[in-house]
């Protein structure tokens, strides 16, 4: 089965600062996202996961590498026509629903801002209709359009943020920690909503989060990122069952599980980068099992392979 590649990231590098103060936030990152899937990017704070999302959104400039969307390069200088198309088709959902909504604007304006910018000449009646539809799609009432963001709870605000993305009828959504700021019970609602939208409209997600247990529920494939480098990438269940890179295993062991007996016996596994001996045998990006990639040198790749054999 050949799947259609929607987004292809090749050798992406993002560097902040200039000259002596340069900092490489993203180092040679490669991944493909297939149409209709949810691709998860997991990492700790400062790992560069948000920077990758922002590079795809073209909020930060990439310093090297290509980002191909539907086969066309979208980073760097692009034609105005492609720019407009990408702006419409790729949308973003942010972590903090209060900070990402204009507190001085009414919901009506917030949700339709994209339409106003990209669909010149849209009639007032048509615009109102689309806003109402978008609000209903995310489980809000149409009359909320005349209210301000502060009048809503955290979960409702996040729904407004989602409505703002959906009104553009996007093909691809970058969701950056969309549920981290929410309560447990609200999280479930938002996750369900995102999944529901995906089913109805074949939206592809790049889901950025630090929480592997949430990722496991929502993502089809997961890439684990550490200090700007992807260290492991595989189908979700394969990654959980056959974690290879010691950093992935450390992340998995650190997730607290709601099972007291198991938690109390748990041995914490702490990742120490010094265990890699990369002095001669340099690490490369290798496919150790079908569809399961890991950053390792030749010796380690052999060890990882043997770990789950027999």
């Amino acid at each position, binding site marked *: 089965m050949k799947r259609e590649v929607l987004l292809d990231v090749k050798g992406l590098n993002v560097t902040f600062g200039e000259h002596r103060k340069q900092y490489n936030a993203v180092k040679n990152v490669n991944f493909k996202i297939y149409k209709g899937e949810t691709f998860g990017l997991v990492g*700790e*704070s400062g790992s560069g996961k948000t920077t990758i999302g922002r590079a795809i959104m073209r909020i930060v400039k990439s310093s090297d590498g290509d980002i191909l969307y539907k086969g066309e390069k979208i980073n760097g200088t692009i034609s105005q026509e492609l720019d407009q198309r990408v702006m419409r088709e790729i949308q973003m959902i942010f972590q903090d629903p209060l900070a990402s909504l204009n507190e001085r604007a009414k919901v009506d304006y917030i949700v339709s801002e994209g339409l106003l910018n990209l669909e010149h000449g849209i009639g007032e009646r048509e615009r109102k209709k689309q806003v109402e539809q978008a609000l209903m799609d995310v489980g809000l009432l149409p009359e909320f359009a005349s209210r301000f963001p502060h009048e809503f*709870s*955290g979960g409702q605000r996040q729904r407004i943020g989602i409505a703002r993305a959906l009104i553009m009828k996007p093909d691809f959504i970058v969701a950056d920690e969309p549920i981290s700021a929410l*309560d*447990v*019970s*609200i*999280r*479930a*609602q938002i*996750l*369900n909503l995102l*999944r*529901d939208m995906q089913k109805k409209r074949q939206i592809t997600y790049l889901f950025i989060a*630090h*929480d*592997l*247990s*949430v990722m*496991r*529920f*929502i993502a089809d494939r997961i890439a684990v990122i550490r200090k700007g480098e992807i260290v492991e990438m595989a189908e*979700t269940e394969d990654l*959980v069952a056959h974690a290879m890179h010691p950093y992935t295993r*450390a*992340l998995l*062991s*650190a*997730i*607290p*599980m*709601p*099972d*007291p*007996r*198991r*938690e*109390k016996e*748990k041995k*914490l596994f*702490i*990742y120490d980068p010094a265990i890699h001996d990369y002095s001669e045998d340099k690490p490369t990006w290798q496919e150790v099992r079908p569809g399961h990639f890991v950053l390792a040198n030749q010796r380690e790749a052999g060890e990882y392979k043997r770990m789950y054999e027999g």
Partner: protein
Amino acid sequence: MEREMILEVVDLDICFQLRGKVLHAIRDVSMELYQGEILAIVGESGSGKSVFTKSFMGLLDKNGYVAGGSIVYFGGEEEREVNLTAISRERDWRRIRGHEIAMIMQDPMTSLNPLKTIGSQIMEAVLLHQKVGRMEAIKRTLKHLEDVGIQEPEKRFEQYPHEFSGGMRQRVVIAIAIACNPKILVCDEPTTALDVTIQAQILDLLKELRHKYNLSVILITHDLGVVANMADRVAVMYAGDIVEIGTSEEIFYDPKHPYTWALLSSLPQAGQKGSDLFSIPGTPPSLYVDIKGDAFANRNPQALKIDFVKRPPYFQVSPTHKAKTWLLDKRAPKVTLPPIVEKIRKGGLF
């Protein structure tokens, strides 16, 4: 096993005056805290868990007041009982705060002074609470830094908060709390702002310090995984009331209250990929109006008629486990447990 009680809350009511209306934040809550245990309080935001513990230290906002009930602290000097609800003077509170009951907040950056060195901030607590001279205080500060797992304490002593990472800052905040020599440590979402790997380390540190300093710990969190990792006992809070309390094993393997079931079911670990995750319908009740019956009734699909009429009392499940739900009444119909409970019992989580 008879353990010494260190804090006893009886029928506590806390209200807030807000724009001429009264908000009933804590409604008849009773709770005991024993020497050396870790008691976790879980609940959604707005359930009252922070307000509840703030009242132990006289830290309620100006418009908040204790409307009834008592909080008795048994750990005072010469084992004297202190009724915390009777304290009105700021001077008397200062004898309790830090010295008897200390608190760790969620965000370590806001609890530290950015203009003072780490060392001087910890030493301030040592000088105030341990009655020692300057030289001895420096020595003890270094020891506290070491105790909370900060390497090269001499060098770190002279540094400022911005030179520390989030996890390290939280360690400093813990060191300040420990330096006050408290008997009770209240941790309000101590790891919510931290990464999972750092979170695991801070939780391990708290467990270690509890034994070393013989602390009783109250842990406020909404993360049930953290609760399972840390707690000896768990109190589940909903709409200003503890609806279920029991040992950690009892709450996770044999929960009785529908709200506890709902909380467990909405965990992503409970979800089956490809099908919807359970989410609690509706919203928590308004605390401005008197709640009739069981506060969770209108969100509970299995609610009984009586749930809407009469507030359930505690039903004792075991000597350590009780829950406020009519489902435990002899006359109540049998209901099926949600699948997540069976899954946790069998250890079927990944």
